[in-house]
């Protein structure tokens, strides 16, 4: 077994709110191997983005990481000083966000924004930084990189802005890229181009990726392994084939059936709505919406357990080894 690049153990991130302490991320564990892509899928409030921000220690008060270890290349990020963290962010672990227009600085040219990263982290001269920036823009398949260097973000189209963001993230050749809903705001034909680009750069840069999305189809297209989150917890965690073909957790199964596929197929919505983190149901958070609910589910929260080799689920009644695609 390869030494994991990132090993997250029992991560808990909480926010102090007027209604008490809210656990946005609750006892989360996962690993990412070098060059591997882990997808995290979940609905709003499931804790996907809080997880991403926790990894870079970007949780601002009133939020805080209250427990856990974040081992990156064997070192615990939670024990690093703020100065050491600054060196990790953008250099070893980079992040790309959904809201490109707010993530890019509107008053600086794209070129300057890429060069800044290189000058700060790698102490490059302006000339070196410039050459490297143009090279990186080429690597993200930006048309005419020299011209784009002089453009302001508002002069670029949505797809080009997302490419520019990815270029900034890749500038220092990080080992891990965190992508938080990066294609959500894009049109489908542009999304398809960005997904193709991610395939290419993963190979070229031997990049590991944490890819966060609410869209199971996008996750299926991009990721090697997948974790499904619900109300701050990981409810299922395995490789992509098992997740789509022999999933165990009723929430994963319900999510797959709630997306329209073909007209003939019946659309089965999940009853109820995503719970508020400040007033979670007792026991298993999913029990009020669950088709397999038993009285014990309301009392005891199921722990994430390895039911089959490398197939983890947090459910008292997981479905084991029953193919989903072919109902009997």
């Amino acid at each position, binding site marked *: 077994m390869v030494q994991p690049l990132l090993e997250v153990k029992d991560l808990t991130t909480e926010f102090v709110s007027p209604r008490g302490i809210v656990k946005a991320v609750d006892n989360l564990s996962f690993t990412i191997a070098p060059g591997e892509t882990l997808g995290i899928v979940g*609905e*709003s409030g499931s804790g996907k983005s809080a997880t991403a921000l926790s990894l870079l220690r970007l949780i601002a008060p009133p939020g805080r990481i209250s427990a856990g270890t974040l081992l990156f290349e064997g070192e615990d990020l939670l024990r690093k000083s703020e100065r050491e963290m600054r060196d990790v962010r953008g250099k070893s672990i980079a992040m790309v966000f959904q809201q490109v227009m707010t993530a890019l600085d509107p008053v600086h040219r794209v070129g300057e924004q890429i060069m800044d990263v290189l000058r700060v982290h790698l102490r490059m001269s302006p000339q070196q930084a410039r050459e490297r920036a143009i090279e990186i823009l080429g690597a993200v398949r930006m048309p005419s990189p020299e011209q784009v260097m002089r453009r302001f973000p508002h002069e670029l*189209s*949505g*797809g*080009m802005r997302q490419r520019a963001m990815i270029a900034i993230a890749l500038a220092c050749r990080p080992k891990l890229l965190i992508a938080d809903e990066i294609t959500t705001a894009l*049109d*489908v*034909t*542009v*999304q*398809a*181009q960005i*997904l*193709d680009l991610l395939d290419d750069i993963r190979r070229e840069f031997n990049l590991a990726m944490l890819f966060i999305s*609410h*869209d*199971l*189809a*996008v996750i*299926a*297209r991009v990721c090697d392994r997948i974790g499904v989150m619900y109300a701050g917890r990981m409810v299922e965690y395995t490789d*992509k*084939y098992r*997740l*789509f073909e022999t999933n165990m957790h009723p929430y994963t199964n*319900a*999510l*797959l059936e*709630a*997306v*329209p*596929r*073909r*007209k003939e197929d019946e*659309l*089965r*919505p*999940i*009853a109820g*709505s*995503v719970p508020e983190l400040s007033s979670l149901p007792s026991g298993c958070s999913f029990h009020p*919406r669950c088709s397999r609910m038993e009285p014990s589910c309301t009392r005891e929260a199921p722990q994430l357990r390895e039911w089959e080799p490398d197939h983890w689920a947090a459910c008292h009644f997981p479905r084991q080894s029953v193919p989903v695609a072919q109902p009997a």
Partner: protein
Amino acid sequence: MSTMVATRPRLEQGTTALQVTELVKEFNLSGLPWPGQRKTVLRAVGGVSFDVPQGTTLGLVGESGCGKSTTARLVAKLLPATSGRVLFQGEDILAASGARMRSVRQSIQMVFQDPFSSLNPRKRVADILDRPLVLHSGLSKRQRLERSVELLETVGLNGDHMVRFSHEMSGGQCQRVAIARALAPGPALLIADEPLSALDVSIQAQILNLLVSLKSQRQFSMIFISHDLRAVEYAADEVAVMYAGRIVEQGPAVETFNDPLHPYTQMLRAAIPEANPRADRPAIRMQGEPFTPINPPPGCCFASRCALATSECHQSQPPLEVKIPGRTAACFKV
């Protein structure tokens, strides 16, 4: 007393609820006239024609900026059209007076994308539902209250929600209230403009099923607008695929998506990832981005992204013509 809603003449099945002909909307982007300034016109909708037969659903699909929402607003006369004709139940509503429109509006209702911003944050659900009933139903206060509760039950909520404000409900619940409000005057045409996009995945299916079942119970006609081909295929009988302000392909929903004719529809279809890790990667290479029709070129707007384009495509606009019985496409190469 509930007569106004109940006895309004409904057209028989088989007739046309809505007939849109050569609808055009141009926005002038030039600002103040300035010496030597070129005139800049955004042709958001560039001559769109379609029919919605009574009791059917027309899906409008396309990417951002293709003119689908503008088309919806023109049809509901929330925006004045630059030219064209909209016949609603045989009446030209673009020519109708303001007073006449007020009564036509009870028959054309809209549901919008963002359920929070489409409900007044300072009004309780009871007031939100009462308003269209005050304007259009002629019912007494007591009857309106009963009707409001009935409406909430039709959309899967109940009387308890009457006292809520929009911030006290989830996105899905707000969207249900917005749908109840649209149903209140008993519309003959419901325009749903991206009603699912702001909702969580697990809630989208609830709202989609609700709209489809309400339509078959209440037999209104619907224009269902979405960028999500799968949702449109599920909800619509006919679809019109829009690109840069024009309809590029139109036909029955299932056929259009299973076997698209126009190169743009093919690209759109291929771009949708499948929830299957063993699915093949799209065979069509995607290039370019959606085109904004500012001072549009004389030829086909899709030509710059199209693998089949020849000089003919850059010079003249391909007309929307019948390619297979029941299906039309605007392309020289099909």
